[in-house]
């Protein structure tokens, strides 16, 4: 037991706590868009906490080394770069599929924009993609 293991355990605990919160959010939120909002939490603080926690935890153990930390950092970096693309694809697919916003939603500028840019709803699809 030393400072590294304690810090690592705390980070993993924090990560699992945010995993729990995002699962709770999946149940509590009213529509698919708000559920996406809470589920991105698990990808960011949840996964980052667990991944960084494991890397730091390993520094404090007798079998661990700095290699664990650099490897987990690389994993975290790739996760941060790829995860939002799937989130973006999912929520965009949901909208294009016509899933309605929750009745408590206050504004939908995207629908107004699609209307304004011509009756053909496909027009804005062409540009702007990554």
């Amino acid at each position, binding site marked *: 037991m030393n400072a590294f293991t304690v810090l690592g355990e705390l980070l993993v605990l924090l990560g699992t706590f945010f995993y729990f919160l995002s699962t709770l959010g999946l149940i509590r*939120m009213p529509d698919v868009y708000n559920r996406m909002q809470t589920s991105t*939490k698990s990808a960011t*603080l949840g996964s980052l906490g667990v991944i960084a926690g494991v890397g730091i935890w390993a520094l404090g153990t007798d079998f661990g080394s700095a290699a664990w930390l650099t490897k987990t950092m690389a994993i975290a970096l790739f996760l941060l770069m790829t995860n939002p693309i799937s989130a973006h694809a999912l*929520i965009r697919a949901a909208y294009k599929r016509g899933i309605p916003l929750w009745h408590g939603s*206050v504004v*939908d*500028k995207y629908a107004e*924009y699609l209307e304004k840019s011509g009756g053909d709803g496909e027009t804005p699809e062409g540009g702007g993609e*990554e």
Partner: protein
Amino acid sequence: MGEVSKASRYLYTVIILFLIWLMLTASLDPQEVGFGLLLSLIVAAFTYEIFTTGGLSNLHPRRIAYMLAYLPYFLWAMIMANIDVAYRVLHPARPIRPGIVHCKTVLKSDVGKLSLANSITLTPGTITLDVDDDNYFIHWIWVPDEALTGDEEEHVKVASENITRPFEKFLKVIFG
């Protein structure tokens, strides 16, 4: 971007691949480093055309400094947003007021726009729904009162101020 030479793009790809190799092996043994360098040189020859358009100019010290400053800034923003969304999930009354808002960005390059969209999506409470030129459509879990005006320009200004502006000042330097 046709003005960037192939050599510059190739070298940039080699450097990035080699850095990833160093992180994954975490060893300075001459055999490992040498083999990693060899592999980077081979893989980069096949992939540099789709890997980068900017080449070595991406490694300008000013850009690297801003990138290093951006990481803790972004992590901090992410943690604050996480706590905010956690509060909304745990609160018995579920205080959400979602909506899709319209933002405009000043970023020009495609990579910059991609990074901005990714940063917005990674921050809980905001998800990029669609990007069209400089128009961003963002699903926001709590649309503030100021953004609920009928005036389109005012709406865009308030929304951009809240969502895109904090990231833009860094990304503008990093990606242009």
